[in-house]
């Protein structure tokens, strides 16, 4: 199941990148995708962590929310940069994570970093060290809405 979807994804990327659609070249592409899937199976890299297809449906509701948050945070940081009287109040804080799996922690830490104004610096057991540009940004993060959404997305598919 994982190998099949990996092959389909690889072939889709190949189709986008190649741009030549003659039967010979397409069959060469299929062969090379097959070889890559076979090598990855031998290396035992195909699992729910390397190729998380169980997250597909959750991601459809999570990614638009994340984009909305990114735009809101961007406007905040842009105001901080361009407004001379607003001062930055850098803050270091620890955020609790409720995800159990490594994959969930990675998604949560990357979402924190992707949102401007907060950067995850260190991931330890059960908590993430975060550097926030402003105190209000840090307080927003401590409310834990992003944490709940990531947990929901990772947990639903299992």
């Amino acid at each position, binding site marked *: 199941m994982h190998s099949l979807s990996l092959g389909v994804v690889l072939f889709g990327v190949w189709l986008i*990148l190649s741009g030549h659609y003659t039967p010979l070249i397409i069959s060469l592409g299929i062969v090379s995708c097959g070889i890559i899937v076979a090598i990855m199976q031998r290396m035992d890299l195909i699992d729910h962590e390397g190729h998380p297809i169980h997250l597909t449906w959750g991601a459809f509701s999570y990614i638009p929310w994340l984009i909305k948050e990114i735009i809101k945070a961007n406007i905040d940081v842009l105001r901080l940069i361009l407004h001379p009287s607003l001062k930055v109040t850098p803050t270091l804080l620890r955020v609790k994570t409720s995800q159990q799996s490594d994959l969930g922690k990675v998604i949560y830490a990357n979402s924190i970093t992707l949102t401007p104004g907060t950067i995850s*610096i*260190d991931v*330890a057991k059960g908590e993430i*060290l975060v550097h926030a540009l402003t105190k209000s940004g840090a307080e927003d993060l401590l409310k834990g809405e992003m944490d709940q959404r990531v947990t929901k997305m990772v947990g639903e598919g299992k």
Partner: protein
Amino acid sequence: MIYSAATAALLVTMVLALIRAIKGPSIYDRIVAVNMFGTKIVLMIAVLGFLMGRPDFTDIALVYALINFVGTIAVLKVFKYGDLGRAHDDEEPL
């Protein structure tokens, strides 16, 4: 017209990033600036492709995005450990 404006904006950004890369007190300031510079190059190659009417340039932009990421990680690893070859998973958490 709009592409020229975007190219100009990207050029101004790249000059500002270069100023930070030259001034930057620590090595990490410089790496931040150079990483940002690389992302701006990716965008500029894409915009230039449209400006010159040759959108095939996006292939080059894609490859540059890959190289920029690997390059940043490699430079960081060299400055942290002084070596590219070893694997380090025994470092203590902060």
